[in-house]
Structure formats: C-alpha cells, structure tokens
C-alpha cells in the first residue's frame, strides 16, 4: 500500500518535469506530448508497483512517452499515406529528448507548463482541468470525479482546451515582462480556485473533492519552490495552509457547516497553522504586499485566537481596509462589514452594508442577505433578521449553506 502511494506521489511530482522536457523539444506538438505523457504515467502506475521503481524514473517516463509520441506519428503518417497516397514527414529521431537527469531548463519547464495551462483564451474551468492533468498528473477520470461530471465531458473539455491553445498560437515559452506577471496572477488564481473547490466539499460524494485542496497545496508548494522570492506566491500558499488547517472543524458529523465562531479550535491543525503563520510573516516582511498575503494575515489572526471573542478584530478590520485598497470587491466589503460590526457595533456594520444596496454583482447573492441577517440579529432586530436568513436560504445554491441558513432562521423563529 505504501509502495503504491509512493509510486503515485512520485509520478505526480515527475509529471511536469517529463512533460516540460518533451514539450521543450516539440513545442508545436504540446497536445500530442501531453497525451503521450499521460499514457506513460498509466504504464508506470501499472508496472512500477510490481516490478519496482526504475533507477531513473524520470528517464524511464521520458523514454516511454517519447516512444509513444513517435509511434503515434508513425501510425498517423502511415494512415495518411494510405488515405492520401502522400508521404508525410517522418519523425526525426535525433530530436528525441536526452534522458539526462536534471537538465538546467527543468525548473523553467514546470513554470512554462503552468503558464501555458492558464492561457488567457481558456475559461477558468478549462484552465483548472488542464492544470490538474498536465501539471498535476491526474487522470481525466479522477478530475471528472472531483468535479462531479461524466468522464466524457471532462475529456472533451481538456481536448478542447488543448485545441484552443494551439489555435491561439500558445507556445511553450516564457512570457516576458507584464505578460509574465499577468500570467502568474492567472496561475495563482487557478490554484486558488482548485483549493476552494476542495475546501468547500463537505460530506458523502463530496469527499473525493477534498483531495483537490491537497493537490492545490502541493502545486502551490511547487510554484513557491520555483519562485521563492515572490511574496504573493508565498502568501497564497500560507492562505491555503491556514484555511485548510480548519478543515476538520468546519463541518460536523452530519456534514453540516460549523461557522468559524463556533468551531472546536482544538481540532485545528496546529502544525499547519505554524507553517502558514511563519510563511505569511516572511512574505509580508519581504513585500510588496498583495491580496493573498493580506488574506493569509487575516486567516493567521483567526488561527491564533483562542476563541471568537479573543480574536483581534481591530487588526482584522485594518487588514480588510488594506485588502479593500489592493483588491476591492463586494465580497471584501461584506467581510469588512462583519469586522466593522465586531469592532464598532452592528449599526456601523449595517451602515457599511447599505453601501452595497443596488450593487448588481450581489443582487442575487445569498451572502449579502446572510451577512445582513447576521448583523440585524446582532442588533436585536429579530424580525428583519429572520426575513434576511429566509431570503439567503432561498438564494443559496449550496445544500449545506441552505441548511445552515434555514437553521439560523428557525432558531430566531423558535424564540
């Protein structure tokens, strides 16, 4: 069992290196390279647990994937010969990647690969799927299961994503200057989305999705190793670790949501919190400050408080004000309103919330109604709070959130 898990871990770690090396040799054939590496991974997963891990696992994968690629070209060209009676170009075997371990470009390869998977022409659903497969080394079946769609749907999505990259001239190169910074932001956002997909999973069939959080953390660690001086990369990793540390406490045995204030803090993962706190501290000291670092700093303050009451709310409020400057959004305003209510009282929070009235982006969003209900309840306006919780429950598209909001409404109605 351990051997199997180790094989899987090793394969996933080697995936971007092998695909990177192959795609560097055949930059115009990214689509075929990606398929060939997936096939090599399947071969390895079948053989290594029985026959043992080869001495040079990376070289083994590269050799098998290269062979697959050449075989595909051969059968493709003979098919064309039969169909068109036109001889097409034979693959050039001299271009086979060298099988040396640890070539200098290897680190850059993994980054180039991430940048390519997060190509701006792709929807975020496609960026996520392609990143998990090409960089994470997950099979289509596993990705489909995690996103609760049929395997055929996910296979189409990945295939379309690769075609889109090809058509829009996406290349296996390092974007320069401002484009590089923009693409890195896209990569971090994709990792953040993958993390959230896993983190919000609650129970039952959803549990398979929880692996997505671990995968996002693993990929964020990889990017942090590649770009150790980028404080936002470190900030994102810290945010994931600090948020994930609350995983066991955030749902009860029935899969119902437990709000932060009511969580059993002894169930938080202290080791992960320590790592996250240290990382965000170092990132903030190095700067420049960015939204992921600020969110991680807020999560760190929650993590370090022994109870909801003992939380340093003035400091959290100050950080939300910084976040509002760096990356304003109605969701940040919502969170700031809760912090304002904790520091200055519910009326001040409600005043801030009023500034969101008529904001199209939140018009049908259950979280506005939920926060509104929470602050009204704090202010003792029970009837209005009840209406807000009922409205929030109607707007929610999440089963556990709807149950939670209905419980809040029922608790008010019962008193």
């Amino acid at each position, binding site marked *: 069992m351990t051997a199997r898990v180790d094989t899987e871990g090793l394969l996933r770690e080697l995936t971007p290196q092998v695909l990177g090396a192959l795609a560097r040799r055949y930059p115009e054939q990214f689509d075929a390279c990606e398929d060939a590496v997936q096939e090599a991974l399947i071969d390895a997963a079948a053989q290594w647990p029985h026959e043992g891990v080869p001495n040079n696992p990376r070289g083994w994968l590269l050799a098998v994937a290269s062979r697959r690629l050449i075989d595909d070209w051969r059968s493709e060209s003979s098919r064309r010969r039969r169909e068109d009676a036109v001889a097409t170009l034979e693959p050039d075997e001299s271009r086979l990647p060298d099988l040396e371990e640890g070539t200098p470009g290897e680190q850059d390869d993994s980054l180039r690969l991430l940048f390519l998977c997060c190509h701006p022409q792709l929807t975020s*659903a*496609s960026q996520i*799927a392609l990143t998990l497969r090409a960089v994470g080394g997950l099979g289509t079946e596993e990705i489909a299961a995690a*996103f*609760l*769609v*049929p395997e055929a*749907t*996910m*296979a*189409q*999505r*990945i*295939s*379309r994503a690769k075609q889109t990259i090809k058509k829009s001239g996406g290349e296996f190169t390092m974007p320069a200057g401002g484009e590089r910074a923009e693409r890195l932001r896209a990569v971090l956002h994709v990792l953040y989305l993958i993390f959230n*997909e896993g983190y*919000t*999973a*609650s*129970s*039952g*069939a*959803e549990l398979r*999705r929880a692996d997505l959080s671990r995968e996002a953390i693993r990929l964020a660690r990889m990017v942090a190793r590649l770009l150790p001086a980028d404080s936002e990369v470190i900030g994102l990793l810290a945010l994931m670790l600090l948020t994930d540390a*609350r995983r066991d406490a*955030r749902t009860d045995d029935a899969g119902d*949501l437990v*709000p*932060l204030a009511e969580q059993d803090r002894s169930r938080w993962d202290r080791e992960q919190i320590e790592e996250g706190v240290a990382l965000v501290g170092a990132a903030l000291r190095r700067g420049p400050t960015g939204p992921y670092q600020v969110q991680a700093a807020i999560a760190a303050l929650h993590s370090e408080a022994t109870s909801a009451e003992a939380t340093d709310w003035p400091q959290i409020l100050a950080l939300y004000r910084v976040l509002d400057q760096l990356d304003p959004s109605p969701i940040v305003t919502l969170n700031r309103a809760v912090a304002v209510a904790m520091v200055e009282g519910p009326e001040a929070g409600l005043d801030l919330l009023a500034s969101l009235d008529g904001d199209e982006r939140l018009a049908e969003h259950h*979280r506005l109604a*939920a926060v509104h209900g929470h602050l009204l309840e704090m202010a003792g306006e029970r009837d209005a709070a009840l209406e807000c919780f009922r409205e929030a429950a109607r707007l929610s*598209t*999440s*089963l*556990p*959130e*709807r149950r*939670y909001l209905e419980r809040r409404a029922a608790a008010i109605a019962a008193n």
Partner: protein
Amino acid sequence: MKYMLLIYDNPDTREIFSGERGAELNATMNTIMDEITKSGELVGTQALADPSTAKSVRAGEGSPAVTDGPFAEAKEFLGGYLILDCDLERAVEVAGRWPVVGTGGIEVRAVMDGSGEEM
C-alpha cells in the same frame, strides 16, 4: 456551477418538429448539442415520454394515491432537460438559442451543490 435547462413543450411541439420546419429546427438543435458536447459543458440530457403516459403519485391516507396523467394540469409540460456545467450567462445564452416553438420555453435553474463555504 451546474444549471439545468428545463425544456417546456406544448401539445403542438411534436407536430411542429415533424412538420415542414422540422429539418431546420432539428438542425439548430443538433448544432447546439454538438457545440456543448465538444466544449465539455454538457453534463447530461434526456428527453421525456409524452405526459399522457405519466403516473402521478401523491401522498394519500394510508397508502399513496396514484393517478394517470401529469402532476399539474397545464398546457405546457416538461419535455426534457439538459444539464450544463457553465456560468449562468452562458446557460441563458444556450437556452435562448434552443429551438422552442409556440408557447413552449426553457426554465434555467441552478443545480444545488453539495459544497458549502465557511460562514
């Protein structure tokens, strides 16, 4: 996010689809099906048998009450559905292109998710 497109037909729908406009309507439908399949957005789709063949089961005293015919007496009835994995804007756009005829139409509803954010 997943959305269900509930396709409401009316008693004339089948007739119109098999009539002189049928080829054009079916071609439009096939084009959309092809598009949402190849993009990896289509999660599932089924067409339903005629509502006259339905059995409606309601809570009864002691045992459930079963009657022939659809649950609600309305001119429009559920003819089938599509489930798409996409955003709301896209779901509404696809619904807007779906060939509905007469008084038929499409209702777009979010599919409830088992995941929940921390409160």
